[in-house]
């Protein structure tokens, strides 16, 4: 092989490595889901979330996932990153479209960290009929088909069991296209205070909902943008 050919081959190989490395850095390491920014009104920040049995990504469409509703466009964004102003009361609404899974530790059935230790809960069935809204301090995830996931910010000691559709709907009628706009679901609301100082607070689901992974704790459970994320508090 002549010298020019060898040099050319070497340069091509080098360029391929550089391009590959750049692709990995940009596509995997620097890639991050978008952050949805919420503003307060009268000291209250309204945050809207939903959790679905699947998602609208191209790479992992079968992973369970949270979505965050953009307060301006009202569109559901496939992310678990959002920011709220410091010192406000955050009023959260979670639409639980995913089916039930018992928590590994039933202690997580206890509502903890809300302003009054309770959540408001209503279940909508596949015919669109909603149960009367109840104020509850426990959603017993071991009593039957009741809990789908949890929403927890451990550093704020906020642990919320998120209800699921009933057993029949969980097994037969779950929403099949994300973000979900119809289908049986739970509607759960609660309030909690965020600190008056800024900071990043990670949140996660404590139900092992990463089906197909060791102990159900891999995949979406360990990937930001699916069942865990960050709440940024703006000082």
């Amino acid at each position, binding site marked *: 092989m002549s010298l020019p050919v060898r040099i050319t081959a070497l340069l091509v190989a080098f360029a391929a490595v550089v391009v590959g490395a750049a692709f990995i850095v940009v596509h995997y390491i620097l890639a991050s889901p978008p952050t949805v920014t919420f503003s307060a009104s009268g000291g209250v920040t309204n945050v809207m979330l939903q959790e679905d049995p699947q998602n609208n990504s191209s790479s992992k469409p079968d992973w369970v996932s949270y979505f965050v509703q953009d307060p301006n466009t009202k569109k559901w964004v496939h992310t678990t990153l959002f920011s709220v102003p410091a010192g406000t009361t955050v009023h959260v609404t979670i639409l639980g479209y995913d089916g039930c899974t018992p928590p590994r530790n039933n202690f997580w059935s206890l509502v903890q960290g809300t302003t009054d230790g309770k959540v408001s809960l209503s279940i909508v069935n596949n015919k669109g009929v909603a149960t009367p809204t109840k104020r509850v301090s426990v959603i017993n995830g071991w009593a039957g088909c009741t809990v789908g996931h949890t929403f927890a910010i451990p550093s704020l000691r906020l642990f919320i069991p998120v209800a699921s559709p009933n057993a029949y709907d*969980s097994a037969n009628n779950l929403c099949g296209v994300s973000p979900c706009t119809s289908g049986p679901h739970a509607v759960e609301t609660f309030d909690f205070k965020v600190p008056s100082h800024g900071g990043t607070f990670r949140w*996660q689901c404590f139900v092992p909902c990463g089906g197909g992974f060791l102990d159900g704790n891999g995949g979406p459970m360990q990937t930001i943008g699916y069942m865990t994320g960050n709440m940024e508090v703006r000082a």
Partner: protein
Amino acid sequence: MATPGATAGSTRTNRDHGMRIFLIWLPLAVIADLLIWFVWKPHIPPGTMTSSAEHQQFDIAFMAILCAPVLLFVWTYAAYALVNWHHRVGDDTDGPPIHGNAKIQATWIGVTAVIVLGLFVFGTVELIVPAGAGAGEGPAPIWQPNTSNRLQVQVIGQQWAFTYRFPQFGGMESSTLLLPANTTVEFHVTSLDVIHSFWAYQLGVKADANPGVDNIAYTTTKNQLGTFTVRCNELCGLWHGAMYNYGHIVRPAAFEQWARSMQLTQARKGILNMMPPYSLTYDPTVIPQLGASIVKIDGITGGAGYYYPPQDPVTP
């Protein structure tokens, strides 16, 4: 070339050099050890909140006191050699030949043997006296505290939080760890998923949290109120670095009030009856209310009808 012995460049004997090195080294060693004991020791982590922490602080100080004279001797000897025995201009003679010296060899072997065996005895005593030194001793501890009046605390690790159950308070569970002062604590450390490690830093307690294993560790809190850090010390997934929280040592009366209040509240809300009966370990696949094995239950475990798919590479 100048040598440690009587040479052309020096009229001093080996004994003279040895005495000079000794006289330089001795005050340095004494000063260093006094500084370690009186100045540094009170600040050595993990502090003195518990018996195990206090012993660990003592152990580190003791080892430092042993090591400092050795280190200083090496440095003193090296500095002395540089000053007195360096190469001088015009001196091209060889150094003195090296001979075997049975006395020095015997001294060396004897001293190092005493040091190693002494450390073995010291380490063993420091493991036994504070009842395992705050380390996890497994499900059948060899070294236990003398008192049977112990507060039992179960530490449950899960991705990614520690929770704490108190069997002497109806099995109530908390995401916060409060401990009373002046109390012997018996930690039962376990996990519900992967391997974690319960490290209560200022308490001098560290025990692995293995699923299906009851790992027991002891400590006795001192009359020192305050906050301590609990962190996971075993890489356990995405949020391992965020798996920490803070515990508090409070007065016994305040602890009693808190624990009773938590027990009453959890009983009133019904969660006490919803949690599994207190057990030294838990099998996450067994939910008494739902049956023996949730893997086999249909219609209760999500849209696809199972909790852990049978085709999973690993089912619990």
